[in-house]
Each structure stands twice: as structure tokens, then as C-alpha cells.
């Protein structure tokens, strides 16, 4: 697994397109949000910025890059090549996705740390960490499932749009309006509960009971995404 991960990391550093779309773009977007935080003070504060930031990096950095990586490696039969070795399927996927996951996690950590320094610090760091990890797990699951429907890296520009736009829109909606109204709908939408958890963790409004309520829908989305991934993921191109 680790040789695959090392190889993928090298590819990420070599591939300018991946660097720009997967890592630079979300970082710049997040930096813009942090820089313009005063504008958002009235609608959601730092918690809102944190939620949108996590989803921006999660969707653009982790999810999109995961789909592009898997589609690309399948298209040029590299997945089949890896399956010709002694490495297990789980080891192959872990090796391929570990570098982008690690980079995204570092990105989010750095951006949230900057936000904490320039604005308020988060009230419940462990809860924020749980929200971040839940978002990342959901994005990885959705990435695996979407990769099953994606024939090529070019095709990924279309197939990833619904999840990218959808999850960021949900995070923005939940972050700006809260979950006081339409609570069930907002919590059940993909990413809605995790976004709310991030906002509450930052502001300190979250109670222990809320955590379970807000993690459950996210875990359900993760389970659904992984179920879809098992059914949809292909190791070889369509013939």
C-alpha cells in the first residue's frame, strides 16, 4: 500500500492540473472566505466560514480529486495492473486515496487554524474534528461511488458537479439559515448535519445529544455512499 501512496503523491506533485484544481483552487477560495470574514459576520460568523471551508476543500479537493484519480487510473488500466500484484483491493484503494486525503486534511487543518487565529477559536475542538472527519469519509465514499459512473478524467468534470455543487450549497444554506426551521430536511440533506455540527462546534452551541443527532445522518450518507461504491465501482474500463 505505501509504495502506491508514495507513487500517487509524486504524481500529485507532478501534475499541475491536479495541483491547481484539487488543491490551489479550494485553498484560494477558503483564503478568500477567511479574508472577507467581516462580510459574513452578520450571516453566520466564523462557524459558518468553517463549515463552508471544510466542504469547499472536501468537495473540490478530496472528492473531485478522488474521482479524477480513480477514473484516470482505471482508464489507463493501472488499476488492473495493480490488481496483478499481491496487493489487496482495499490496499490499492487506500494507497491511491491516502495522499489526497492526507493533503486535504492538512489543508483543512491549516485553514481552520488560520481562521481560529484571525477570528474566534472553536469552542469544541473534538466536535469540530468529528465533523471534519465525517465530511471527509462521506466525500471519499461518494468519490468511490461517482468513480464507478465516470469513464475518464474529462468525464469527471461533469459527473462530479452534482455532489460538488450540492454539498457546498447545502453547507451554505445550513450555515446561513441554521437548522431552526426545516430541521429534518436540512439534517437529512447530504452534508447538512455535518455542516450544522461544524457550525455548532465552532460557536459552542452543540450539546452532547446534538452530536449523535447530527452524526447519524452523516454516517448514513457514508454508509449509502459506500454501498453505492460497492455496487458501482469498476476496476476496468467498460468494453
Amino acid at each position, binding site marked *: 500500500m505505501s*509504495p*502506491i501512496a508514495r*507513487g500517487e503523491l509524486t504524481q500529485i506533485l507532478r*501534475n499541475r492540473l491536479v495541483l491547481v484544481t484539487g488543491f490551489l483552487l479550494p485553498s484560494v477560495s477558503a483564503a478568500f472566505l477567511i479574508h472577507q470574514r467581516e462580510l459574513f459576520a452578520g450571516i453566520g460568523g466564523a462557524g459558518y466560514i468553517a463549515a463552508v471551508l471544510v466542504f469547499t476543500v472536501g468537495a473540490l479537493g478530496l472528492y473531485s480529486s478522488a474521482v479524477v484519480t480513480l477514473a484516470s487510473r482505471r482508464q*489507463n488500466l493501472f488499476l488492473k*495492473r495493480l490488481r*496483478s*500484484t*499481491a496487493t*489487496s483491493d482495499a490496499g490499492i484503494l487506500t494507497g491511491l486515496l491516502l495522499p489526497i486525503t492526507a493533503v486535504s486534511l492538512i489543508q483543512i487543518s491549516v485553514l481552520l487554524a488560520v481562521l481560529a487565529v484571525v477570528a474566534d477559536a472553536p469552542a469544541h475542538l473534538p466536535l469540530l474534528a468529528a465533523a471534519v472527519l465525517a465530511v471527509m469519509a462521506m466525500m471519499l465514499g461518494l468519490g468511490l461511488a461517482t468513480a464507478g459512473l465516470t469513464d475518464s478524467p474529462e468525464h469527471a468534470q461533469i459527473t462530479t458537479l452534482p455532489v460538488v455543487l450540492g454539498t457546498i450549497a447545502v453547507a451554505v444554506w445550513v450555515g446561513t439559515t441554521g437548522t431552526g426551521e426545516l430541521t429534518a430536511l436540512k439534517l437529512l440533506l447530504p452534508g447538512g448535519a455535518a455542516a450544522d455540527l461544524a457550525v455548532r462546534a465552532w460557536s459552542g452551541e452543540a450539546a452532547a445529544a446534538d452530536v449523535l443527532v447530527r452524526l447519524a445522518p452523516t454516517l448514513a450518507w457514508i454508509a449509502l455512499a459506500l454501498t453505492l461504491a460497492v455496487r458501482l465501482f469498476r476496476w476496468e474500463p467498460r468494453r
Partner: protein
Amino acid sequence: MSTTPVLDVDRLNVAYDGFHAVQNLSFQVRRGELYALLGTNGAGKTSALEVIEGHRKAASGTVRIFGRSPRDRRAVRPRMGIMLQESGFVPDMTVQETVRLIGRLSGRADTAERVLGVVGLTRKAGTRVSQLSGGEKRRLDFATAAYGTPELMILDEPTTGLDVRSRDDLWATVDRLREDGVTIVLTTHYLEEAQERADRIGLMHRGSLHREGTVAELTRALPAEIRFRLPALSPAPPPPAARDGDGRFLIETFDLPQDLYSLLRWARTAGVEPLDLEAGPTRLDDVFRSLTGR
């Protein structure tokens, strides 16, 4: 020496989308053998190989490699090297990085430098895969399969796209591996390669194994041919010579030296000179054509 076959395919059936690609395929490959699995396009050999390589599930039947399922990667892969029909490399990786990565994942011990030397790609070690020619990619593919000298190598059309010299070099490498006791399972469209090198050959057609044996066994069932013309007004040659569709004479024989000698002796006696004389033993191509009816 163990009598367990290295590869044991037993009543294998492969089907997809309602199409029966392989039907009741059975064959065994013994240790140290070079077994060539040949067939027309669509004969089912790629589907069979995919099951043997562990990339596809069988509809029924079994495949055992060293007595284990080919899907048991941890147990089987360190002992087998697979040269896929299509390369499957990351274009931006260098040749050395590719061999090092696939080699390490194979579970065998070796160095990229040694293997690249074996296939003559040492000078290309730092070159990105995207910049290699088709033939160089095939050699890289072979290098990843040969990494650590596995006990079994699956070579799926190894010489496709190689020029004559590269082809000779690759076969020389295969010969050296065989001297080390490596078992080879080969598919190829170049029948002369199989004829020259295979210990045994399996001929597939429409999903089934139609014939199997050594080259001698396979060709023994078909007669050799002698073809020739005669100048105008020449006397007719004695039977079994008969006219073929092109106005030439054809002798089908199971005793080529004797019948060729008889023909030439008759020609000398009759004072005629056979023109465009062609005579040769039965080739694998002839067996192949008799199988496919083309």
C-alpha cells in the same frame, strides 16, 4: 519434484452479458513447461486468461495455480508474473519508478536496475512512460512480469508491437528464464513463435479447447503438401498427384521425404522439370486453418 501442476484449469466456463466466452475448458501446465494457448479472435483465450490471472470470476469450473485460487493474491502473486495484453501504466511515471513500484507490490525480491538491464531499458530508466514507443512499453511490461524471477509467467501476446530484434531479445530472455525453471503460459498471434518454442499447445476455437498437444502431435494428423507446375505438353505425374484449384499439382502426403523423392525420380525419368516446386512439413498454420475452416 512436485507432480502438482503449476496451473490446473478444470471445466472452466466464463460467461458475460449472456455470451458464453469459454466453455468447459480444461488443461494443465506442468512445472518448467512453455504452454501456448492459441486461438482465433474471439476464441475465448483472453477471457480464460483473465480468470487465470484472477481478474474475472468463472461462471463455473475451477482454476488452481500452485494449488490455490488465482484470486488468493497474497498466496499466488509472489510466485507469478503477469504481462498484460495492454500496458496499464501511469504516463507520468518514469520507467524506473514503474518497475520499482510494481516490483515491490509483487512480493518478490529484485532490483529495478537489474530487470531493466535484462530487457535493455537501462538507458530509459529516467524516461516517462508516455515517451516510450509501443515496443519499449511491451519490454517494460515484460520487465514488471519478470521482476524477481517468478515461478510462473503469464505472457499475453508479449511480442505484439516489437520489431524483429526486440522480439529476438525478448525470446532470448524467456529462454534464460526457462533455464532457471520458470513455467510460461503464452498467448500469441505469431504462430511460428508458438511452433518454435512451445512444449505443448492448446488450440481454442469458439470458447472450447479443440486440440492440444506438442507441435508434432498436432501436425501429425494433417498431411504435408507438395505443390508444383509442369511445362506444357508434359506427361501427367503419377498419383497421388492431382490438380489443385490454381492449375498446379498437389500431393498430400504423410511421408514427405519419400513422396518428394518419388516425384523427383519420376521427373528425371520422364525428362520434365517441376516448376515452382514447394514442399514442406505441416505447419501450425495448417492445423489452425483446418480448425477454423479458413
